[in-house]
């Protein structure tokens, strides 16, 4: 089971990183959300996996590690606040700059204006 879990964490990290490397703000937001899933799962994993052992005293024989759970719980909520902030920032950037590229300059427009002079390899 641990193998599958670790694979999923790695998969989410890879997808998240790839998306954060894109040039458009919305993809970056998606990537950050995905990354926060994987980070939360990873942190949670530091308490190891166990089944039917929720840390409610008196409900089961053995208990899972409560500390990572408590940390991840707040991380989820803060993660939401961060995602929200980035989304609004992206919208604000688009409103103020007129495009949704992370650099604030649309390479397509630049390329179009430069195309007259030379073949632009902007990206």
């Amino acid at each position, binding site marked *: 089971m641990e193998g599958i879990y*670790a694979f999923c964490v790695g998969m989410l990290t890879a*997808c998240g990183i790839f998306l954060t490397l894109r040039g458009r703000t919305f993809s970056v937001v*998606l990537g950050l959300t995905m990354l926060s899933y994987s980070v939360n799962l*990873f942190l949670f994993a530091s308490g190891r996996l166990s089944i039917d052992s929720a840390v409610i005293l008196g409900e089961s024989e053995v208990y899972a590690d409560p500390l990572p*759970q408590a940390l991840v719980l707040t991380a*989820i909520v803060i993660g*939401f606040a*961060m995602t929200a902030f980035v989304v609004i920032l992206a*919208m604000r950037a688009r*409103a103020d700059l007129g495009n949704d590229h992370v650099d604030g300059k649309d390479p397509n427009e630049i390329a179009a204006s430069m195309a007259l002079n030379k073949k632009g390899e902007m990206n």
Partner: protein
Amino acid sequence: MNTLLWLPLLPLFGSLVPLLTARYHRNVCTLFTAMLPFIALLLVAEMTPDVLNGENQYAAAQWIPLLNLNIAFRLDGLSLLFSILILGIGLLVILYARYYLSSQDSIGKFYSFLMLFMFSMLGVVLSDNLLQMWMFWELTSISSFLLISFWGHKSEARKGARMALTITGAGGLSLLAGIIILGNVVDSYSLQVILDSGDFIRAHSAYPVILVLFLLGAFTKSAQFPFHFWLPHAMAAPTPVSAYLHSATMVKAGIFLMARMHPVLADTDLWFLIVSLTGLTTLLLGAYIALFKHDLKGLLAYSTISHLGLITLLLGLDTRLSTVAALFHIINHATFKASLFMAAGIIDHETGSRDMRQLNGLWKYMPHTATLAMVAASSMAGVPLLNGFLSKEMFFTETLHQEALGSLSWMIPVLATVGAVFAVAYSTRFIHDVFFNGEPINLPKTPHEAPRYMRVPVEVLVALCLLVGIFPGFIVGDLLYAASLAAINGPVPEYSLAIWHGFNYPLLMSFVATAGGLVIYYYRQPLFAFQANFSEPDAKQIFDDIVQNIIQRATTLFNFLENGSLQRYNYLLIALAVIMMAAPLMDLSSTLGTRPELPYNLVDITAAFLLVIGALTTVICHRNRMLALISLSIVGFIVSLAFARFSAPDLALTQLSVEVVTIVLLMLSLFFLPQRAQKQSNPRRVIRDLSISAVIGGLIGTICYALLTRPLNSISDFFVVNSKTGGGGTNVVNVILVDFRGFDTLGEITVLGIAALGIYKLIARMRLFMPSGDYKGRPWSNDAHPMMLAVLSQSLLPIALLVSAFIFLRGHNMPGGGFIAGLITSVAIIQQYIAHGVDWMKHRVKIDYQILIGSGIAIAALTGVGSWFFGKPFLTSWFDYFYWPIVGKFELASAMIFDLGVYLTVIGATMLILANLGKLTTSERPIQKEEE
């Protein structure tokens, strides 16, 4: 207060005095400025007998003991010698500058800089802690920068000051590196400790590095080859500055450092080779160039370089006696060179020129000054009965006792004599070319004698030259002995300061030097013509080229790293993270640990499969943003199921409700952002990003697997054991949040609140283009909100609120709590917004979400403060059990009030974000409201 502490403090206060008195007459300002250093000199005089008797004076105060950083001063023989030079010559320079500076110059500013320099220089020589000494060392560089650039309107002054600062500042950094390494080796920065562990340091493997770094600092400061070029350019300073800094004090700081660290760093072949060869090269080069300088100050500058080289050579020769000779020459050079600079300043002041091709026959116009300058110049040349002669004889004697170069050792005395030949030649030129040799040519002013008191400092110094030259043992014998004792840090060998040692080799060398010098001066015209064949290297040009070159390279590197593309920075950061992560993983012998794994089952595998599909779909279809968002929500859903599966019900509940809010938020934003993006990245970039993502995903997966299969050693048992008895709850996760780690949680809800307020401000002034249709141009539907949804959600609201209240109340003992309850409440309210629209909600919900956030944080914080009233630390919790008829036994805990604060903050933050964003989609836009 210890008397010693006043020594540096007096000039420090003294730097304010001239600024306060500058408005009065010049004489008043000069008098008051001189007062404090004069008192300091008296204090030195008071302490001198003790020091001469071998009782070093100490003063220390603790500053940062953990870093071995103390404010510590010491006065031993070496620092005594330098303190007298600094204060004594400083006082003379103050008097001299009174007459030198013209009425347009701000004398208050000048004196202030001068006193600042005096303060830093005294700090260097008195410090008993190396780090502290370094600080003063850098202060001398800075204050000398201010002094050299005093005539800031002249371009050469600015350039010269900048060059001096660059060179000495760079040397200072290297010195700092050396000091830190040395401090780590000895584990102390205290000078005494370091001086006493010389053998240990010399045997240490870091010794060569320390030595080179220290010498770089010393050589740059003392203008040793190849760093000598800054000194001639620093001659753009007013002459009192040159007389003070560039003869007696600042350039001697490097020499001082070598003498100070002599017991620690010297006595090795490496020291001998570097120091003596550098000194010898500088000695010859300086003496040779000095002869060809037509500028009076230029001649003196190169002569200073040459004499500094001589002292360095003596320190490098490293017989005990050579150190004594070096210290003796420091005194002598300071006296005759300071007086020569002052004389040159007088000549410049009274004739308007420093060019020796114009200055001729001044004897007739200023006989008094001429006599003084001639005596000082003779001392520089090493004429008997003057102090320069004595130390030069000692120097010759020491060069003869050298065997370190093996069969080539004879070269040292020969080259030393060659240097002396040129010294005689340029000294003769200074005398003959300026005061005799015909009539002045085209001078801007008619030369005349300087004011009476301007000559006093020169007279004092020249008198010292004579006195030391005739009664050496009486005048400086004790002082020299004490200084040698400190510099050698051991027994001082026998030496004699007599004028006459009989006919011997040193006397012969002196004779050869004098004769040779006179001959060279006599045949100077052919020599000048010969020298004219070589174009003089322009140090300023070379220096500028090097600086420009460095700037250009830095710019290239900078532009390469920072080309304005955030994508690129992101990539570089991730690449760095990969490298940092991969290296330690190599040391991990096996990924698989010893902890037994859970069995596989089909449901888990299916869920994992869905998660992977969801994640991949998000990536592949990320340009079709709606689809990507839906796939992303699948991932989030599976993640919350995973939490539920692996015994974390609280996490599952939180993740599930956050998921709803996040997706609603992203959908809303998609209304304003383009719903589809064109293809952007070129294939090469896609491949690059895919590979780095795969690598980092693999790394994280490996770490995660290694982590999961290793036995758990956790501190959590404490929480499990104490949760019920100490926190009064059986849901340990919740008890940790609101009780054990309540302070963390308080911080976290504060962050949440701040983020929400930030978002609110970002939204408030947003001017967005309101799309009228989707990416294909189809207009948005104008249908009213569907009735089914409206009715359903309205009837769901009370139930949802009831559920959230239930979740909140049971949170302490069963899965739930403030975070989850807050999110559930938010979802219920958001649903109303979706079902009815902003307009409808506006009239029915009149909650100010900002106040909600504020009161939430306030409640949580006040709960914490409350425990103070019971004499307990912040956030101590309280709980007890009560009995109420019908309801039964129940628990009340202060943690519940804290949780209420969390609950309110979460609702406030979530709703502030979503409701305000939602308002943007309607005509009720906040920007219009603000503009009313």
